[in-house]
């Protein structure tokens, strides 16, 4: 952050503050707030109890009501700070009737006091409702959704890398009739989005019996023209002499692919792998169409279904949103340089 501050206070040159300096300052300052703020708010909110979530105005941090064990009572009693004519003190609530609460001093459990609830506030400390995170896994299907998402992401990425790199190899390192046609075909479909072919694609996936199957989600996404295009561009830069040297060295064409070309394509494969993971993890529209049974939902579809219920249980929903966000944030933190370089270089997304 000190580096950020150093940048913020850096000026265009000269001693006077140029209007561009002020503008830069404002733009970047509000950017930190607007870009990070919402995600941070999501994370903070996800630890709040349902009661706290419905508070208005909301508190910044999650709090938990304090409870205390009092002699003579089986359950833990919630603590309140009471201030009335008798002064300020901390009491535990035994039961509440209308606007009046029966309360005891934990130090003196025998004497029950009657307090107007307007005169008391709950005693709270910063605390996290971990149940928001645990319950959906234990009581709902979120564990299943997560497994499905991991399966789809992993398998689709592996198949993408394998099939795309094989095709890119054939299209970059061999001369054959129709090669130009295939390359043009792939480039031409680079930008055909899924939304244009939803209906017929659905009928084809149904035709091969993959509706409500994770494979129905995986297969239509793996033959990405983008991947073939990216890998081919990279493979074109590998000198042909290396392949010829390998041929002189008794290597079969398959060995040339996996012992020579594939390792040398590793940087491009890494970029494609990262993007494939992010793409497949985030896919929404297609899984939404193909998957209509709960047990095959991916996280994104599950979240949407959960958010669409009449009585949204925000405390669970927010926690699950955080869970869904985590892998992508991890990828972002560790591989930011790769991703930004990949985008700047290829316009991939």
């Amino acid at each position: 952050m000190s580096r950020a501050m150093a940048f913020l206070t850096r000026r265009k040159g000269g001693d006077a503050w140029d209007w561009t300096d002020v503008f830069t300052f404002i733009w970047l300052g509000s950017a930190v707030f607007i870009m990070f703020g919402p995600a941070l708010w999501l994370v903070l909110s996800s630890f709040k109890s349902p009661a706290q979530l419905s508070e208005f105005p909301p508190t910044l941090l999650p709090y938990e009501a304090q409870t205390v064990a009092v002699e003579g009572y089986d359950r833990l009693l919630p603590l309140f700070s009471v201030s009335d004519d008798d002064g300020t003190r901390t009491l535990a609530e035994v039961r509440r009737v209308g606007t009046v609460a029966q309360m005891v001093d934990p130090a003196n459990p025998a004497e029950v006091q009657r307090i107007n609830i307007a005169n008391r506030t709950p005693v709270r400390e910063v605390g996290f409702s971990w149940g928001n995170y645990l319950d959906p896994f234990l009581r709902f299907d979120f564990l299943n959704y997560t497994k499905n998402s991991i399966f789809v992401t992993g398998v689709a990425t592996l198949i993408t890398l394998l099939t795309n790199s094989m095709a890119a190899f054939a299209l970059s390192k061999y001369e054959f009739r129709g090669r130009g046609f295939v390359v043009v075909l792939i480039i031409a479909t680079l930008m055909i989005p899924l939304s244009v072919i939803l209906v017929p694609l659905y009928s084809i996936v149904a035709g091969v019996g993959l509706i409500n199957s994770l494979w129905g989600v995986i297969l239509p996404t793996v033959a990405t023209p983008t991947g073939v295009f990216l890998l081919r561009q990279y493979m074109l830069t590998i000198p042909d002499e290396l392949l010829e040297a390998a041929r002189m060295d008794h290597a079969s064409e398959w060995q040339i692919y996996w012992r020579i070309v594939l390792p040398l394509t590793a940087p491009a494969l890494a970029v494609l792998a990262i993007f494939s993971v992010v793409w497949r993890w985030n896919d929404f529209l297609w899984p939404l169409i193909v998957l209509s049974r709960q047990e095959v939902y991916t996280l994104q579809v599950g979240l949407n279904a959960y958010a669409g219920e009449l009585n949204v249980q925000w405390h669970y929903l927010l926690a699950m949103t955080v869970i869904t966000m985590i892998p992508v944030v991890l990828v972002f933190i560790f591989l930011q340089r790769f991703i930004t370089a990949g985008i700047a270089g290829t316009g991939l997304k």
Partner: protein
Amino acid sequence: MGRIQLHDIRKSFGAIDVLKGIDLTIDEGELVVFVGPSGCGKSTLLRMIAGLDKPTFGRIEIDGTDVTARSAADRGLAMVFQSYALYPHMTVRANMAFGLQNTNMPKAEIDTRIGEAARMLEIEPLLERRPGQLSGGQRQRVAIGRAIVRRPTAFLLDEPLSNLDAELRVSMRAELSALHDRLGATMIHVTHDQVEAMTMADRIVVLRAGKVEQVDTPLNLFNRPANLFVAGFIGAPGMNLWAGQAKGVSVQLDSGALLPLPLGVRVPDGPVTLGIRPQHLRPEVGGPIRAEVRLIEALGPESVVHADMGAGGGLLAVLPGQPDLGRGAVIELGYEPQFVHVFGSDGQRLA
């Protein structure tokens, strides 16, 4: 082992004929150099022998077996590429082992061979490094080592020295020759550098525009070039070639001089080209050649004189020592008649 025969090899890329019928026999253990200007087809010819390209027509035999249809992997040859083509993601050891592993050779045998080759080429300390960490000369050695461990029928070297600096090139040239003597294997070396060809070759194949111009030992090429092209290509600086008319025992040059032919040499009267190497001209008072000096390149032990014989006839002479000549001085030159080459109007050698 290692006798390579080419029968009428032709290669066309579309309408362009790159090789126009090459017949050649390379004997066992020979070091043959293919030399010629760029675009003459020498590298293409080497790639045909390697099996990396297929000839449009013709037959290639190795030790009497027709291998024209065989793939590169099955010809038992090894190649050193111009760029070395070392696998950048493998260590030097892995580079050398790759080809052997592909033939399912036992690991112990692979290690022995790599050890031997590494000792021979003095690259033992480099075995665990990657090509990116090596200098140009070291990469060159590794590339040769990768070929040696294969114990090939013949080595094919495609301009292997062209990426080295001048000094290193000279020493690697000598090392390659020594290596050839030591291994006794057939080697085919492609270069555009005639000094490389002259110093290394048992025999030189001079190629031009897809055709063999001459095949002979380096000294024979120098002493008795078969045609104008070889005469001009071999030797530095290039041979003086003058157009003229043969008349009896002498030749009347277009630039005016009348030069006698060697004793006992008779050529039919008519247009000829007469050639004398710059090194074979010497100062001679009253000599048959008179020319005006235009430029002198003093190299120390000898001087290259550029002179003008008049009527557009240029002349180069390499004179010993440091003759005291200035621009515009007139020199008179003579020569030993046996050093005169005469070529007919078709460019072929007459005498």
